[in-house]
């Protein structure tokens, strides 16, 4: 067991395999499900994501309580996050893929996803090339470092999660009504 936990290659392979299988089986690695959610016609993917985030945030809170966590918060400035998210969103809405689901779809027989993955390698190259001109200036705007909601709002970790869980449940109930109405 210790050998597995100390070996990043084996750990990466195991966790990656579980993640890839779950992406496929949950329907997130399916462009029809993603486009359906973005068109607000088939909210399956949205509901999967909501449960994913809620379970994840509760689990990470418990890990932190026992000091068992390995956090990796990104230091991205808020404007870079917004602008980068929007670029990704355009590609997401156009194709129904994101990096993880694109890989999962490409390996499960979707030729269009394979071509999108090739585009991703070009996108990474564009990022490397435009780093000085675009990314650096953008990153300096609204840059507050690795901040988290509880410290920012001055409320407890558990209270923050309780608020988000209530919001998530409201979202799930609302989308359920919509589904029945159709």
């Amino acid at each position: 067991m210790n050998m597995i936990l100390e070996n990043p290659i084996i750990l990466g392979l195991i966790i990656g395999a579980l993640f890839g299988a779950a992406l496929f089986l949950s329907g997130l690695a399916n462009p029809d499900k993603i486009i359906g959610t973005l068109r607000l016609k088939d909210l399956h993917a949205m509901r999967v994501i909501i449960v994913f985030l809620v379970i994840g945030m509760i689990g990470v809170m418990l890990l932190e309580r026992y000091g068992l966590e390995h956090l990796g918060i990104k230091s991205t400035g808020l404007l870079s996050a917004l602008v980068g998210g929007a670029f990704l969103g355009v590609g997401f809405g156009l194709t129904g893929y994101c990096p993880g689901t694109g890989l999962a779809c490409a390996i499960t027989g979707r030729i269009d996803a394979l071509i999108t993955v090739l585009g991703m390698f070009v996108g990474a190259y564009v990022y490397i090339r435009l780093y000085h001109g675009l990314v650096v200036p953008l990153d300096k705007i609204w840059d507050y470092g690795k901040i988290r909601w509880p410290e920012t709002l001055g409320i407890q970790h558990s209270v923050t999660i309780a608020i988000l869980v209530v919001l998530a449940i409201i979202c799930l109930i609302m989308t359920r009504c919509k589904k029945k109405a159709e």
Partner: protein
Amino acid sequence: MEEKKDAGMQPVAKASLPWWLGGLLLGLIMVLAVWAYDPLGVSTQFVILDTKIIQHFDAEYVAEHPVISKDKYQSLGYGFWLDIGLLGGALIAALVVGRWKLQTTCSWWDANHGKSPVLRFITGFIGGILILFGSRVAGGCTSGMMASGWVQLAVNALPFTIGLFIAGIFVARLVYPKSPEIEK
């Protein structure tokens, strides 16, 4: 592949798992990742593989670049093997549930643009460029920035999610106005 393609549009099939179970598994895998090593993330590896290629042609450029000269971008570690594992896991899952299928478009595409794979490939390639470029500008993709960001209660996950969904909803509305049949 086996049926005649012109026989009519394929409805959007249900996912293999119900929404709550799919979400539960993904959430538990995220917790496992945070416990074992590092939160989930996918997109950095594209930059690392590009760096490996650029290194062959212009090592000096790599050495002087503020991002790709870093150690993290020079070696294939946990994140790389996570992506390889992801490919293997998705492949096995698809084979086990009998859903591995050669496809060139999807139902939403067919309902709006007919069965025209060429246009799907062109838009897919352009989409891929935007997807990875945007991910790196934001510091992560839907896994590394949205999912990992929210579970750690990172503030920058909020503007990322807003940008992602506003742009995604807007573009999907333009590109896919007509809805195919959806299995409930």
